[in-house]
């Protein structure tokens, strides 16, 4: 190989280097970021799940029954099990809120307004099983349900917050978070009298409708 031939070979090596560079750029380059698509799918899935919770009746996912209790004790005069198969999953969650509203004084929970812990336990177990089936295989999830706090006095308020999750938070980046709003299935008058039954507050001012926020957040597995 003479000097000119060596020159051509070196030119080709430089060319090869440029092509290798182009290939590596093509490997890295994607038209849409996969993470963006994953987040879009997660948002769509979360919306679907929240819509499904509002529509599917408990009877269609195995049925829902529980024995009423007050502060962890069975109610002796109760007729037995309550069968709520005709309620939607979201209605069960909202009813759980209503049955387990908590009173907080100076940032500390003191006692539930009218506790029904067995119902709370059963609803959480039931919803977790359903969410595991719908979402569990694809994403990690956290479902948070909470009411807007109702102020009884500057220091005291009535509220409810619960969360059902499939994992412990370890600082991963959240894929999406979707929210729906529902109303507590109780009139302002009924809510006022149920609070006043326990606490003698005369000038209790309530919002026209107490809203419930149901938030579903998803994390990639």
């Amino acid at each position, binding site marked *: 190989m003479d000097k000119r*031939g060596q020159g051509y*070979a070196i030119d080709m090596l430089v060319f090869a280097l440029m092509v290798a560079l182009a290939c590596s750029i093509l490997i890295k380059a994607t038209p849409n970021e996969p993470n963006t698509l994953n987040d879009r799918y997660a948002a769509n899935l979360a919306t679907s799940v929240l*819509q499904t919770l509002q529509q599917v009746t408990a009877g269609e996912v195995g049925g829902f029954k529980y024995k009423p209790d007050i502060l962890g004790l069975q109610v002796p005069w109760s007729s037995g099990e309550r069968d709520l198969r005709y309620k939607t999953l979201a209605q069960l969650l909202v009813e759980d809120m209503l049955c387990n509203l908590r009173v907080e004084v100076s940032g500390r929970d003191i006692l539930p307004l009218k506790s029904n812990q067995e119902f709370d336990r059963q609803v959480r177990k039931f919803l977790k099983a359903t969410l595991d089936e719908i979402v569990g295989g694809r994403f990690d999830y956290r479902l948070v349900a909470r009411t807007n706090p109702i102020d009884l006095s500057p220091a005291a308020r009535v509220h409810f917050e619960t969360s059902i999750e499939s994992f412990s938070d370890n600082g991963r980046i959240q894929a999406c978070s979707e929210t729906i709003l529902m109303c507590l299935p109780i009139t302002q008058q009924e809510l006022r009298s149920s609070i006043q039954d326990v606490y003698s507050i005369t000038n209790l001012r309530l919002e026209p409708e107490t809203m419930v926020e149901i938030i579903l957040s998803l994390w990639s597995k």
Partner: protein
Amino acid sequence: MEQLQLGEDLFATIIVVGLTTLLIITLAHFYHGFARRKNMYESFDLALDIAGQLRDDVLARHDNGVFPGLINPMTSEWELQSYSQVLSRQGIGLSIEVRGIDGKIFLAYGTKTNIIDQYFSPPCSVSLPVAISQTQASKSLGELIVTVWR
């Protein structure tokens, strides 16, 4: 700039031609991978949009209104056909399946692509959980599977 003169150095020429061919094949291979990935992402994006429209509108029409997320398994063939025709005018093929959690198929529409079509334009599927309206009081859990291809 010097011209490449064939025959001047046979060994150098063979190296030049061999390397060029190899590099062009490599580049073509990577470009094919890039184009396939691009196509897959676009199809998935499209499938997500179509699944959302079907879930919230086309399949959610009931006698008493539209209920997003609640699938009407009695949706008429005509409605699905007219929606599918709008897509096919844009060169998009569509197949829909709604099945319960037990695997029972409540609604199926569209044809599957054959193997040759799948090679040139691989289909892309999206599945979303939905509620299926069976009776006024009973709404079961199910899955909407949408497959699209170009």
